[in-house]
């Protein structure tokens, strides 16, 4: 009887621990081999056959197709440089420079990876359409209400994330040892 009860407790414990840790790691997006620059994090290996099992399980569950390493690299930000979570009711600025790449795009998504409805049907910018200052630097304002210059609307949703994709870039291919960057700085400017 004691044996039966003991093994029941063991199996229950095993199932609880095993399944909850799996669920946690897959929903939080645990992956190894990250490359972090400021608020931005990339997982270059996720675009190759060396993808780690956690990242592989996550993309299989979400249905995503990662950017291949010969194509480019994707940097994700969920907070500003100070660690404030992205909230669509606040405004944030992205400013500065990007690492060398033939083209880049920046896109705003909801947490499920969908685009967010807004009045001007804008979901991001490419390196070609951005308005820059004379020295080549730029500022993008991510905000719920219209702003002059490069305005990326949030649609007022509660949580969003930004993905900065560099195409045809040396970053992530061989650059894991050199000094990376620069990636744009991310700052919160206030909330409505």
């Amino acid at each position, binding site marked *: 009887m*004691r044996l039966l009860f*003991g093994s029941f*407790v*063991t199996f*229950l*414990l*095993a*199932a*609880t*621990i*095993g*399944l909850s*840790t*799996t669920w946690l*790691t*897959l929903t939080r997006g645990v992956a190894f081999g990250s490359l972090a620059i400021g608020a931005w994090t990339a997982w270059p290996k*996720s*675009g*190759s*056959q060396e*993808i780690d*099992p*956690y990242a*592989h*399980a996550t*993309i*299989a*569950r*979400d*249905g*995503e*197709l990662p*950017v*291949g*390493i*010969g*194509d480019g690299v994707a940097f994700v930000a969920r907070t500003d440089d100070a660690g404030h979570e992205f909230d669509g009711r606040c405004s944030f600025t992205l400013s500065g420079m990007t690492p060398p790449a*033939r*083209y880049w*795009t920046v*896109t705003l*998504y909801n947490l*499920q*990876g*969908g*685009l*967010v*409805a*807004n009045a001007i049907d804008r*979901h*991001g910018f*490419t*390196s*070609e*359409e951005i308005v820059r200052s004379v020295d080549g630097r730029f500022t993008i304002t991510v905000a719920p209400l219209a702003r002059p210059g490069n305005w990326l609307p949030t*649609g007022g949703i509660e949580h969003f994330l930004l*993905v900065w*994709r560099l*195409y*045809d870039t040396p970053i992530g291919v061989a650059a894991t040892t050199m000094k990376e960057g620069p990636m744009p700085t991310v700052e919160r400017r206030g909330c409505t």
Partner: protein
Amino acid sequence: MIRWLLWIAGGVLLGGVVHLATVLAMPRAATQDAYSRLVPIAPVNAMVPLPAPTAQASILPFMDPAFAGAVCRYDLSNGMIKLNAPVSEAYTSVTFYTRESVAYYAINDRAAGRRAIELDLMTTQQHAQIPEEEDVTAADRLIIDSPTRTGLIILRALAPEPDLMSMARRALAAAQCHIEPLQ
């Protein structure tokens, strides 16, 4: 007391095994992975355009809205795939994914170095069957080995500005992916 501690320790250890097993099994068990999502729109061994993501619907999560896309869902059971993709004016790339969404090869227009990206895709076994001299003489034939029999080829063409999206789509519309028997 000791006996209970042993039962609990056993449970924790077994929990670790369950965790690893479920993580490793996920790519095979997932029913909403990219391949499954594309089955309804993508016939086997043919190139079709990917529907552009909108705020209402997106066939895959985290699609880049600045790109036009096309997909070839391949099956190498009856031969090899010949891929021909004319490059657009801005930036074009081809990425190969296994059945389980692993990006095993990607190339862009500049690396391909021509007006079109031309590739042959075959399994490692099929590649081994090709007579060696043919492999050598056809120097301009870029052969890619697929780790799996089925998978996805995704073509992406950049529209640097929204007005150029139709041009990017036209460039991809000329892309071809068809099966050819091995000699």
